[in-house]
Structures are given as C-alpha cells and as structure tokens.
C-alpha cells in the first residue's frame, strides 16, 4: 500500500472532507425543515393540502437522487439563465430529495401521538400551533430520532453523488487524485475511511437514543 501517497494526499482529502461536512450540515438542516413542513401538510385535515404533501413525497421518492441533482443544476441554467453555485445546487437537491424521506419519518411520529394528547391540549385553550409545537412535536422526538438519524447517515453518504455536477467534495477530490496518479485502491480506501469517521458517531448516537427509548 502506498502510504506516502495517502499522507501526501491527506491535506487535499481533508479539504474535501470539510466540504462534505458543510454540505451534510446544510442539507440535514434543509431536509429537516422541508420534512417538517411536508409532514405537517400531509397530516392536515384539508384534503388539498395533504394531497400536495403526498405528491411531494411521491415525486422525490420516485426519482433517483442523481437525476434530482442534475435537474436542479441544469434546470437553473435552462430556466433561470445562470448556473447556481455548486455547493448551493447540491444542498438544494439533497434537501429536496431527503426532505421527502424525513417527511415520512415525521409523519409516522406525528400519527403515533395519541389523539387524546391533542384533545387535552385543545380543551386547555392551546391554539393549533401551540398544540403542535408544545405537545405533539416534543413527543414525536423520541419516536422519530432513531429513523431520523439513520436517514441523516444516508444523506451524508449521498453527498458523494454531488461529484456528478462537479461539487468539489470528498468523493470528487478522491477521484481527481486517482485520475492523476492511477492509484485507485489506497485513495478510495482513504475516502471510505473518512466517510466512516463522520457516519460512525451518528450511528452510535442512534443506538444510544434507541436504548433510551426502550428504557422509557
């Protein structure tokens, strides 16, 4: 194994890792906001709103992430006449795509909260949004946390697909080093280890929160 090459490439790879982490954080935030909005829409009593939420989920779950990313990037050029910043395009694409999955996780959590909780809060005089944010949402947290973090792990790994539109993140950095040196095995292995280093702590966190749910 060419350890010199790995050591030599490390600064570049770490730079790629920083972009990957930034992309992950931004897209986790984006997909969470989208997920909450879409889940709220899906659980709405107004059929039009809930159908719109459903349509959103079906569209983004039914199309491959690479297509979503390419469509966002080239769609912006085609329809808006200018190209988006590559980081922004990747963040938007990942947020829209993973937002659909996050929405389904939140929806199942919201629906798992017993209707009596809502009724008790209503009689007490809480407004609908107070019922949602003070009573329903805090109770969904325990239910949604394990699947939600699982989804975030998928998202972190999916940031690698942003290399398709040219975002210079970890995967892209690795690939260009391989192109230059022809040393695929040591470089891809290093890239894999770096992904693992971000994903593993998340995985440990899920297991811990899983255990907490059981003990409660």
């Amino acid at each position, binding site marked *: 194994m060419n350890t010199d090459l790995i050591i030599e490439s490390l600064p570049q790879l770490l730079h790629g890792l920083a972009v990957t982490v930034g992309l992950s954080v931004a897209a986790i935030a984006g997909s969470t906001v989208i997920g909450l909005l879409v889940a709220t829409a899906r659980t709405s009593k107004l059929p039009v709103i809930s159908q719109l939420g459903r349509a959103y989920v079906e569209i983004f779950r039914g199309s491959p992430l690479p297509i979503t990313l390419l469509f966002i990037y080239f769609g912006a050029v085609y329809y808006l006449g200018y190209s988006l910043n590559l980081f922004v395009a990747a963040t938007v694409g990942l947020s829209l795509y993973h937002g659909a999955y996050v929405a389904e996780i939140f929806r199942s959590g919201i629906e798992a909260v017993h209707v009596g909780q809502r009724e008790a809060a209503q*009689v*007490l005089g809480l407004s609908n949004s*107070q019922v949602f944010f003070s009573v329903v949402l805090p109770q969904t947290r325990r239910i949604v946390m394990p699947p939600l973090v699982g989804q975030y792990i998928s998202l972190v790994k999916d940031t690698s697909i942003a290399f398709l539109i040219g975002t210079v993140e970890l995967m892209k950095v690795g690939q260009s080093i391989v192109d230059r040196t022809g040393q695929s095995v040591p470089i891809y292995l290093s890239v894999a280890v770096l992904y693992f280093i971000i994903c593993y702590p998340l995985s440990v966190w899920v297991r811990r929160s899983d255990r907490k749910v059981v003990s409660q």
Partner: protein
Amino acid sequence: MTTTTNLRDAEVDSSIRLRSVTKSFGSTEVLKKVDLDVASGEVVVLIGASGSGKSTVLRIMSGLETSDSGEVWVGSTPLHDPRRAREIRGHVGMVFQQFNLFPHLTALGNVTLALRKARKMSTSEANTVGMRSLERVGLSDKAESYPSQLSGGQQQRVAIARALAVSPRIMFFDEATSALDPELVGEVTAVMRQLADEGMTMVVVTHEMRFARRTADRVMFVDDGVIAEQGDPEQVLTNPQHPRTQQFLRKVLEA
C-alpha cells in the same frame, strides 16, 4: 382587585343548555334530539350503557365534537356556531378516562402549560398558580415527577389539577375512574367530591354509583341517544321508573 375578581366570578354563567341536539358518526345516529339543562353550581351525573351516547354529550359540551343540529349553549357561548365554538377552549376543564397527561412534562409542567402558552403567564407566575392547583389535589410534593413515575390515581389527580389551573367555569369528567385499579378509585372520587362541595359546576360520566348517590344533585340515565330518565339520585337509582333504567341498574349492581 379582589372586588373585580369577585364581580367577574359572580357574572360567570356556568349553566349549560342543550336543545334537540343530534349527532351521527357515519350512519350511526349516536344522539337523537337530546335536551339537557345544567344550572350553575350543579353536579350532574350521566349514567348509561357504553355506546348510549353519554360520552358524546360530554364531548359536545366541552367543544371536542360539534353537534349536527340543535343548540348547545355553555354560558353565553353558542357551541353550535362553528365560528364561535372555539371560544370555549380554555374555559372548561375536561378529565379523561386515559388521563392524557403530557408524558414529556413533569406534573407541574403539565399543570402550567396552558398558563404559560395560552395565558402568556411568566414561568414564575404560572408555577405559583400551578403549585396551588397541585395542592388542591394533594400532590404538591409530586410537582417534579413525570407521569410515568406516578400511580394511576396520582396521574388522574394531576390531570384534575391541570384542568383546574385555568380556573374553568365547568368541569367535565369522562369516566375518570374507569381505567384505575379499584383501590385507587377513592382518592380520585374524593377530589371530585371536594370540588362539588366547593360549588363547581360538574358533569360527570361514571359507573361509580356510590359517587352518584353521594355527590350528584341530579342523575340522568342516557339510553340509545336520548335522556330516558332524570331526577335526584335517590329517585333514579333506588326507584327508577323507566324499564331500561331498571334493567341497566340491575346489571350494574349485580356486577
């Protein structure tokens, strides 16, 4: 300050009036023209078999369900008017069979939530009112406990304290003791009796005939979506006139 509060209290109308109220769920007609009056300060107990419609009556009076037709007045609020039905929220108390305490909040957190959110009180102000409310049900020492750390009877008393914290005009109890182990029923009915003695207007759906006999001003027997018989507890429970009431009481007392 005290004078204005008393003045307002005197003006609070906690009477209830239902006229020809109907309600269906799908094709099932649950209420068939219910007429019902509750006077301010009165304690009314609704009895009847499950499915008779007594819980639905309670849920309509507390604003959780809307009637299909007829009139529902709680004080001066017309609950049959969908635009105004919400006005009742925060002015009546409801105690549920399954307690419905918020599991992510402590006993005090449960009791003060509406004060903090709906009434916009500061936390310290809400805590003062909340502690007074917990004292009324004898649980001020459990303020920091979570619902899962309390017995069923204690949970239901916290639920009563939570309802009392907003100074409701009327308290509704929907089979408040049915989910409790028999030895825990007494502590909850004791709190309910104490509220009745303090002059609270109460409508109580229950199978506790002893409670009905000792505490109710009036007992109503609900059968097949109508109030089949009503009167003072002695009359309805000991000497029922309606054959369905006689039949129901025989079954309950045999159990």
